[in-house]
């Protein structure tokens, strides 16, 4: 089991920079999520950590040792590939035993160990089958078996559920998380699905265009996004971003959205010019006394809640409200934002302005 520390990790492919300068720490036993849209450098980061790609610069500490230049086989980590990469010319048992054979383990021990792992994963009955005909779920389990069989320092998984259909994904996600909780092994998990990341992760690092946007526990990232990208990428629907031009002075506790005065957590930093107000849909309330107004353009029924889309002077706003509340399309209503949950962004840097609300999160993020 291991702590993994990444410092200023960078990867260039020719003139293209896939990973710019990543730094984050994965604590021992954590289920760690590498989250970001397609092409942002998640796989590249993971491959550098695994030793399959040589970093252009930077450090990777595995339990304090800098392993950035060491070959994969000396790092003692396991990797679950997106398409599993099971050895096609070997049967299930041989696939799972392959990492043990390289260690020179005796045949009896290999056998015992593989049987034990097969028991954990519930695949005892397919051990002698070739991997070619297996279902997606079974392939997934065999790939996991190959990973856990030699008790590595850490597990790396690159979108391990990407090839499964939606229904099965959920079940495998639960199995994975349960397996992790049982073994307590440090796990780094790559996904582009923010929901999956929020559900499964102890910690998340959000990447975009090769840059680490934010790093922290899911709740902090959800509540206090450090950048407009994170605000927009996480949550469905994502955070509302109301763009305005104006002033957000240090020490103030409100901003002016047109004529409406919107209360915000006391700002510990100031900015002016192109700004944006960020508020999650569940913190937008329909309130006839609200000074900020919007016209209902759509409603979407979701069972216990509904998403109401309103058109305002600063762009569309989505509100998540109880589904028993009646709203008519075309109706003009007042809006109130939960003051302690609002973020203010400086659009010139795309970053959140430090405030009483997010200071705890941004300080270490």
């Amino acid at each position, binding site marked *: 089991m291991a702590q993994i520390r990444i410092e200023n990790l960078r990867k260039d492919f020719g003139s293209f920079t896939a990973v710019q300068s990543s730094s984050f720490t994965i604590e021992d036993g954590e289920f760690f999520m590498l989250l970001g849209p397609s092409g942002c450098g998640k796989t590249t980061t993971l491959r550098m950590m695994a030793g*399959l790609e040589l970093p252009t610069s930077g450090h990777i500490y595995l339990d304090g040792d800098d392993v950035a230049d060491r070959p*994969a086989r000396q790092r003692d980590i396991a990797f679950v590939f997106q398409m599993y990469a099971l*050895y096609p010319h070997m049967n299930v048992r041989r696939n799972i035993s392959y990492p043990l054979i390289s260690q020179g383990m005796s045949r009896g021990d290999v056998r015992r160990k593989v049987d034990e792992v097969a028991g954990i994963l519930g695949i005892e009955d397919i051990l002698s089958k070739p991997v070619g005909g297996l279902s997606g779920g079974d392939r997934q389990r065999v790939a996991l078996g190959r990973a856990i069989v030699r008790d590595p320092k850490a597990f790396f998984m690159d979108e391990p559920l990407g090839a499964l259909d939606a229904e099965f994904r959920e079940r495998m996600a639960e199995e994975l998380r349960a397996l992790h909780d049982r073994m307590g092994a440090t796990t780094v998990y790559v996904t582009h699905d923010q929901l999956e990341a929020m559900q499964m992760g102890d910690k998340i690092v959000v990447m975009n265009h090769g840059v680490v946007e934010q790093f922290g526990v899911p709740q902090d990232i959800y509540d206090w996004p450090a950048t407009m990208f994170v605000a927009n990428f996480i949550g469905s629907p994502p955070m509302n971003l109301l763009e305005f031009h104006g002033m957000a002075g240090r020490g103030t506790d409100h901003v002016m959205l047109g004529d409406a005065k919107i209360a915000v957590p006391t700002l510990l930093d100031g900015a002016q010019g192109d700004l944006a107000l960020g508020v999650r849909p569940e913190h937008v309330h329909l309130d006839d006394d609200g000074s900020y107004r919007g016209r209902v353009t759509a409603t979407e029924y979701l069972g216990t809640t509904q998403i109401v889309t309103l058109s305002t002077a600063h762009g569309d706003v989505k509100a998540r409200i109880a589904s028993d509340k009646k709203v008519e399309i075309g109706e003009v209503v007042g809006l109130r934002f939960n003051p302690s949950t609002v973020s203010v962004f400086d659009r010139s840097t795309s970053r959140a302005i430090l405030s009483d609300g997010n200071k705890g999160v941004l300080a270490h993020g």
Partner: protein
Amino acid sequence: MSYSITDPSPRTKWFAGTLVILYALITLMPLLWIITTGFKSQSEAIAYPPSVLFEPTLEGYVNLFTTQTRVSEADLAANPPETFAEEIAASKGMIIVGPSRFGERFLNSVIIGFGSTFLSVVLGTLAAYAFSRYRVPLKDDLMFFILSTRMMPPIAVAIPIFLMFRTLGLSDTHLGMILLYTAVNLSLSVWLLKGFIDEIPREYEEAALIDGYTRFQAFYKVVLPQAATGIASTAIFCLIFSWNEYAFAVLLTSGNAQTAPPFIPTIIGVGGQDWPAVAAGATIFLVPVMVFTILLRKHLLRGITFGAVRK
């Protein structure tokens, strides 16, 4: 009733079947001719019109493998034939004085053919793997250069090679012929194998690297089994070339390393060309490539698409 592409109508099937049989007859005719001629007597071999039904004899095969000499009636009586081959010789008033050179030439063909095939495939696989997986400077130019060595017929460079071999003492040696055929085959082998190896996902090797194996172990334990199809079909193509090669063999070999192709047509019998012996030689010469191809047939059928349908 309706018929699909995969399930043609009986009439279409008949038509297609007839065409295939006709085509097979046309292409197999010379083969049949050679095989039957090998079992004819000398007079029957040159009979006109050619006889279809005849009494088979092993005369051709005996002549192919032995050296004989004509002796007087008295000598013949003094050395009564003991073996079946001697009897055949005796019936023409000859006795067998020793083996012919055919066995030797055939062995040369095996050594040179399989030797160069082995070398071409080994070097080709290593080169193709490097070209497929590593960042090689000027990769595309190098690949084109390798291909360009086949843009003229190899025999066009016969004279420089002849002079080179003479200087290096490679003329009429097995090593020289193996090197030459390897050089000619290598471009085909690198190109074919690169196509196959490109098709093998890198993740398999990477999984092996993670599982604690070295790059070389990953190569021969994971990549090689995956490339078996490609290696088999490449080997067949290489063998067919070096096995059948005639021009260089005539030019560069004689007493020591001569292969079967230049030797077979020179078999001279008593009173002219011994056609049954030539045909017998050609028949035996066909066997190794046929056996090799049949052994690797399973791979070849999949491999002949050059990886195109490999998933």
